[in-house]
């Protein structure tokens, strides 16, 4: 039976989401408990799977029992095992932390919210776990469609932002599908490992190149790589808090995972780096993305919006780091996927906590929040320091690898962009901190006599746990790298690039 543990990661959230959407019509109160149980089971099984991967190597799970090129199979190695844990952790923490927020934001439909929540998580985990390029598309759409719905439920501009996200997301996914079609025409297969085995043997006619570019552009759209990022800030700013803090940390990161997976494990480094010869161009684009993201963040006057632009810059970190093409850069990119997800979660949860008490995230209204909500703000500062890259928070360690990757590759513009963006992040966050810390709490600012006080415990504890994880992940960065990231990368690159 233990061989079925990987299946639990997907099957349990899926089944429970269906049960939840049934229960939504019978007893709404059951929904949260069921969702919580499902996430716990998924989280535990993700950790068990990680253990098995470390002990026994790659796990291949044959769906419906069919052998790979004919049936769909899962391919679980170090890389996706750790991303699975990441997704489960973020979703679990966020589920607990946003319980009261969700109850307020979706007062008459929490059941359907939790169903969509679980389906979104299922979709992301399915994307990560699968070894089939078409199945990846289907799950991509699962995650995207539930994401559009979750994001579009906010008030005001949410629907319009979500709709434009839907347009760009659909173009992105369709371009990916188109690229997969080219691959299918050239190889006749949809299984990643099978394609990887066939590709080097076939004659190059430009079809592969075009498929590569199509997939890449599609994924760039999905991951909000500058200048294809335009959907992201609006979508995340106007979204309900309980869904923003789930979707913001995960979507872009999972898309970067897909990019790395496709490039390393389908097209393979020899083709992607040596033959295509676009790596330097992409790193330059990443440099622009980092700088532009940071500068645009500076212009914002709302917390969530600023965070959204920081995500744009962070995407540049990871894409650039990966396309540096050396071990240090890739290590940095992979590590930063993990770290950035946790940092973003921490910051969005902290922003959510503040919004739940202050009612807005405009900078002007944050006066005195340090005195009123000290613990939430400690967590916020921890997240901020991690984004800035101050040791011993985890952000420092991935930045270290990224910078050393840039130096090894001789790409000093990328190094400079990272440093500049770190410095800009200092300015960005201390601007917020200054407002919260120096300006006295002004009760005139807060209408209807709202008493601003510390966030409730069920919100605060997960937030502080996340903040603590940032530091723990910092101390265990080396363990992560030697046990998980290094094997993941060397599996694809056969030990060297």
């Amino acid at each position, binding site marked *: 039976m233990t061989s079925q543990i990987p299946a639990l990661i997907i099957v349990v959230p899926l089944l429970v989401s269906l049960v939840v959407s049934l229960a939504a019509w019978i007893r709404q109160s059951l929904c949260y408990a069921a969702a919580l149980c499902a996430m716990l089971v998924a989280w535990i099984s993700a950790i068990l799977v990680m253990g098995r991967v470390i002990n026994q190597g790659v796990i291949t799970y044959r769906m419906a029992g069919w052998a790979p090129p004919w049936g769909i199979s899962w391919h679980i190695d170090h890389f996706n095992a750790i991303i699975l844990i990441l997704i489960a952790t973020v979703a679990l923490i966020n589920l607990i932390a946003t319980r009261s927020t969700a109850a307020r934001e979706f007062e008459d439909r929490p059941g359907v919210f939790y169903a969509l929540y679980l389906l979104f998580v299922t979709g992301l985990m399915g994307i990560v776990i699968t070894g089939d390029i078409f199945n990846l598309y289907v799950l991509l759409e699962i995650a995207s469609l539930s994401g559009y719905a979750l994001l579009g439920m906010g008030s005001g501009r949410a629907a319009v932002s979500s709709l434009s996200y839907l347009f760009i997301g659909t173009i992105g996914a369709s371009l990916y599908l188109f690229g997969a079609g080219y691959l299918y025409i050239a190889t006749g297969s949809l299984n990643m490992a099978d394609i990887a085995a066939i590709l080097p043997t076939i004659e190059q006619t430009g079809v592969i190149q075009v498929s590569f570019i199509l997939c890449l552009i599609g994924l760039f759209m999905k991951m909000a790589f500058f200048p294809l990022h335009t959907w992201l800030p609006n979508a995340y700013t106007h979204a309900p808090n309980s869904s923003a803090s789930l979707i913001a940390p995960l979507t872009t990161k999972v898309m970067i995972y897909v990019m790395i997976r496709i490039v390393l494990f389908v097209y393979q480094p020899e083709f992607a780096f040596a033959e295509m010869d676009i790596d330097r161009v992409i790193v330059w684009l990443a440099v622009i993305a980092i700088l532009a993201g940071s500068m645009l963040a500076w212009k914002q006057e709302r917390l969530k919006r600023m965070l959204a632009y920081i995500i744009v810059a962070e995407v540049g970190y990871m894409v650039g780091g990966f396309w540096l093409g050396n071990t240090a850069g890739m290590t940095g990119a992979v590590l930063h996927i993990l770290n950035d997800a946790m940092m973003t979660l921490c910051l969005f949860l902290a922003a959510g906590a503040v919004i739940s008490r202050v009612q807005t995230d405009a900078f002007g209204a944050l006066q005195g929040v340090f005195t009123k909500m000290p613990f939430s703000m400690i967590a916020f500062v921890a997240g901020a320091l991690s984004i800035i890259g101050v040791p011993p928070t985890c952000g420092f360690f991935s930045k270290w690898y990224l910078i*050393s990757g840039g130096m090894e590759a001789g790409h000093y513009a990328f190094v400079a962009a990272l440093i500049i963006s*770190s*410095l800009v992040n200092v300015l960005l966050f201390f601007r917020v901190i200054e407002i919260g810390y*120096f300006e006295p709490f002004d009760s005139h600012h807060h209408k209807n006599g709202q008493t601003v006080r510390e966030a409730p415990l069920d919100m605060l504890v997960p937030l502080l746990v996340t903040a603590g994880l940032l530091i723990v992940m910092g101390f*265990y960065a080396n363990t992560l*790298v*030697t046990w998980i990231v290094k094997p993941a990368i060397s599996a694809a690159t056969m030990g060297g690039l």
Partner: protein
Amino acid sequence: MIAVVSAKPLIAVLVSLAVIPVLISARKPNVRETWTFAAALIKFGIIASMVPAILAGHTLEFTIAPLFAGIAFKLKVDAFGLLFALVASFLWIVTSAYSIGYMRGLDEHSQTRYFCFFAAALSATIGVAFSANLLTLYIFYEMLSLSTYPLVTHHQDREARSSGRKYLFYIMGGSIGLVLPAMIAIYLIAGNLDFAAGGILAGSIGALPAAALLLMLVFGFSKAGIMPVHAWLPAAMVAPTPVSALLHAVAVVKVGVFSVFRIITDIFGPGMLLNFGFDTLLCIIAAVTILGSSLIALSQDNLKRRLAFSTIGQLSYIILGAALLTQSGMAGGMLHIAMHAFGKITLFFCAGAIMVAAGIKNISEMKGLGLQMPVTMGAFFVGALSVIGLPPCGGFISKWYLAIGTIEAEQFLMLAVLLASSLLNAAYFLPIVYRAFFCNPDETMFEHRIKEAPGWCLAPPVATAAISVILFFYPQPFFNLSQLAVSRILGG
């Protein structure tokens, strides 16, 4: 030399962090302050207990966690680090006492936050002193920067805000913008970042990149206050005086100097610097700062600002000592860390006591103050003598060795700089004393008699002044440590 694995350094670092939860939960000020005291005493006790082992030629090591391939988060106690840690932890005890008097005397707000971050800053300082490699040092350095930010901006007013900005701009800008890339580059070149006698870069790098890295590091560790990255220090004087006293005369600035010292001796190494002729370059940088800051200090009326500029100059003495790369020069530099610390903290304590008792900040208002507050101004006089470098104070000893160092290194220009600077030091300190004791106060100034500051504020400066004098006659503890450290650096 035997490397002993011991958890003592770790405990020494963690003691002050461990006390923070107690501080937060303690409702009564008395309990809180008792715990601060206890932590300070324990910390000093642990650090002092390491002295015999170090003097016996051992080093204490403790690896906390591996961070990157070839670099661990690792503590290592050697003579130089211990010297610095001794000074910092001893002065924390004194400052704790002083803090109580000062904070109560002025009835400051948010005292819990103040004591917590103070404790955290001390942890970071000791961490820097005991770092075994550049990365560990960097981690503690950043921790120190961030834990002092709330202390610098304690008053939470407009002035504190702009000072805080300046502070962050220089400190974080330097550490992220310059130190971090330089450190990574060194790691890529040398394969590790361990502090090793003779340096780790020798032979693997050309002159030009080496110069670039050296400058990035020297200016990047902007806590050392080398001109032109010194501007944060005068700005940081808006902090409560105990903060200025311990952190901006001892812990923070000395951490900067200590880092630069380590870079010079243990990353680049004397041999390499001599080869490329960088010693002169560093000497010139230090000399410019020494003279420049002394000249600026002359024109400052605010006492704390004048002290700040004086500090900037004195810090560069230490860097000068390191840059001389000779036996006596280095020993003088190390000794100066201790001697200057005791002298300067006395001066700051006195400035604070004057603030508490008379509410005076500016020198021009201090006419005749010596008659009203004889003890305070007496201590001030002793401190000033020590900083100027006159006997019978400890400062004389360190300057003496520095001077010998310049002769050994045949840098006679630097000798002249030292002498000129001493004159300037005298020129900006002695008038204060003169004015306090020998000028008659203006009619309106002291309408009612000013009493001495309360005992908590008075005892610490007297104690540190006394120690300054004692150190002149009995410098052995620090002297032996510095000799040991220098012999390791130059003998290695």
